[in-house]
């Protein structure tokens, strides 16, 4: 199914993927009583503070992410993706790492778990990183910076 006016969009696949992410966060919340925030859990796995989840759980959660993506990739016969060059990825990664620690979360912890809980902090954080992301892409496009290969 396509969306009128947006031929590139994949609304049904997006919705199905979103429901799976919601179920993933539900398992973390109802099962373990914790927020499925990827940045905090990744920091915990790496020994850099972060989530209060036990280190073993942090590691298995982090291992599950590529595992789940691999299953989908195998079922679909590969996944199309375009990435930026190494220097761009390094700059972006540093900003994401610093920003998510200072801001106590990312798209999953704030954007999914916090927004659905109507947490004021998460709603403000989500509006902020969305606005910053939109402004960044707009600025890069205005400067003619084509980063994805």
């Amino acid at each position, binding site marked *: 199914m396509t969306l009128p006016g947006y031929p590139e969009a994949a609304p049904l696949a997006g919705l199905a993927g979103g429901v799976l992410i919601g179920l993933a966060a539900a398992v973390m919340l109802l099962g373990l009583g914790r927020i499925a925030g990827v940045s905090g859990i990744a920091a915990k796995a790496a020994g850099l503070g972060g989530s209060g989840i036990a280190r073993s*759980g942090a590691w298995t959660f982090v291992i599950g992410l590529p595992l789940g*993506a691999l299953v989908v990739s195998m079922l679909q016969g590969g996944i199309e993706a375009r990435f930026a060059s190494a220097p761009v*990825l390094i*700059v972006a990664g*540093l900003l*994401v790492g610093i*920003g998510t620690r200072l801001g106590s979360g990312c798209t999953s912890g704030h954007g999914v778990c916090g927004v659905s809980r109507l947490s004021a902090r998460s709603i403000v954080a989500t509006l902020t990183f969305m606005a910053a992301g939109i402004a960044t892409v707009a600025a890069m496009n205005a400067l003619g910076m084509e980063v994805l290969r």
Partner: protein
Amino acid sequence: MTRPALPALVSGTLFGAGLALGGMTDPARVRGFLDLFGAWDPTLAFVMGGAVLVMAIVWRAVPRMQTPWLAEAFHLPTRADLTPRLIGGAALFGIGWGVAGLCPGPGIAALVIEPGAAAIFVAAMLAGMALVRLFEAKSA
């Protein structure tokens, strides 16, 4: 019960599958969503909408539960203060997100899709997290 490893693996695997199915492991799609003033791709809104919808229902069950199914207690954020640190951090994260079209979940999940590029992003992200921790240890 104090064994979070298996439920966390289930959660992580569902999460990674959802990201891949929703197209979020493709930075082009994520940057397409952020390209609001250009060739906008609304797919990410459907991903986030689906996830938020499920979780909005799930949150309603939590107050009626004494404890989680597989742990002794809930450990949930309680802060409600809006600080410069929160907003500044979210802004830095958003800039990084826009630059390469990757946030932490898709960056890690993409390790099986484009291993080299994803590994560079994840390594830099962990370095950024380590920098914050280092700075905090010094100023504490």
